[in-house]
């Protein structure tokens, strides 16, 4: 493998990825103030992005729904149920609740696909 090629490829990828991450800061850094519309967009984007990311994680669900797809959907349902399970806050704190639903959901999913 040609080392020069690999290094240049890495540098190109790094430069592009970093620039993309930095774009908003270059546009609205320092003295230039962010337009209100963009500021508002930034505030309400997290909820939308989380929704988009979930759909992204489940994008292959439709491929073979009765087999792989159903397992994933079920596991997501388990995560939600564990998270929403009505246990008072003093027994299970917020962080513990988050961890529990992730661990149980993931364990369930791994069990499903290895069965």
């Amino acid at each position, binding site marked *: *493998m040609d080392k020069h*090629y*690999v290094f*240049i*490829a*890495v*540098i*190109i*990828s*790094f430069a*592009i*990825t*970093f620039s*993309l*991450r*930095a*774009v*908003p*800061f270059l546009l609205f850094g320092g003295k230039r103030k*962010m337009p209100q*519309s*963009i*500021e*508002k*967009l*930034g*505030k*309400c984007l*997290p*909820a*939308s*992005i*989380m*929704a*988009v*990311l*979930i*759909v*992204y*994680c*489940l*994008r292959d669900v439709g491929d073979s729904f009765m087999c792989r797809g159903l397992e*994933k959907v079920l*596991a*997501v349902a388990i*995560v*939600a149920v564990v*998270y*929403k399970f009505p246990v008072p806050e003093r027994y299970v704190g917020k*962080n513990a609740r*988050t*961890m529990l*639903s*992730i661990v149980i*959901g*993931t364990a369930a*999913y*791994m069990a499903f*696909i*290895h069965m």
Partner: protein
Amino acid sequence: MKEATIKSLPIMFSYIFVSMAYGIMMEDAGFHWYFSLLVSMTVYTGAFQFVFVTLMSSGASYITIALTAFLMNSRQSFYSLTFVDEFNDIGKKSKLKKLYMIQTMTDETYAVNCAVSAEKAKSREDRQKIMFIVAFLSRVYWMIGAVIGGILGQVISFDMSGIDFCMTALFVVIFLEQWENAQNHFPAVVGILVSVICLIVVGEDYFLLPSLIITSSILMIYNARRNSEVV
């Protein structure tokens, strides 16, 4: 520190195993662990790193590599939008820290740090400290996994497939948390509808970016309209 570590645990589980898979794939393609480490440290982005292996081993042109990186990672610009204020504030104290936060923005750190920045009970300083540690640890996990995968991949092999589901689970939990705290569910609902429609129309491989662009446009129009109603 302790709290930040706890918050980063879901990232740890998925990153270590996913980047191990990456290290193994690199080793198979003839790149040793230090290449995996180099890429994981500099480029540091999930899906693209896997595609990058294929591109490099097939000797793809620099233009192809650049274009693929651009298309696959454009979504990160949207993530940064949320944190412009926060990171600029961090930058007042330390420019280096700000650059570090920008460079380490990924799907997962974005998700966790959104949750952190929503915790209004904490002081801004505490929140920023936690965000930094989360970003720092996440990249450490990712690099450790890549190295382990590269070195041990050939020797040990065990079936950990499915572990990456913990990322999905994390997104679901954060989504639910945001849903509970939000007065207005419009952004979340638009996100779901638009991405499902894009998934059906554009297909699995390319729907992420169009979804984000369309969702952002709708939100901007929506915000502008709501503004004029209030006034």
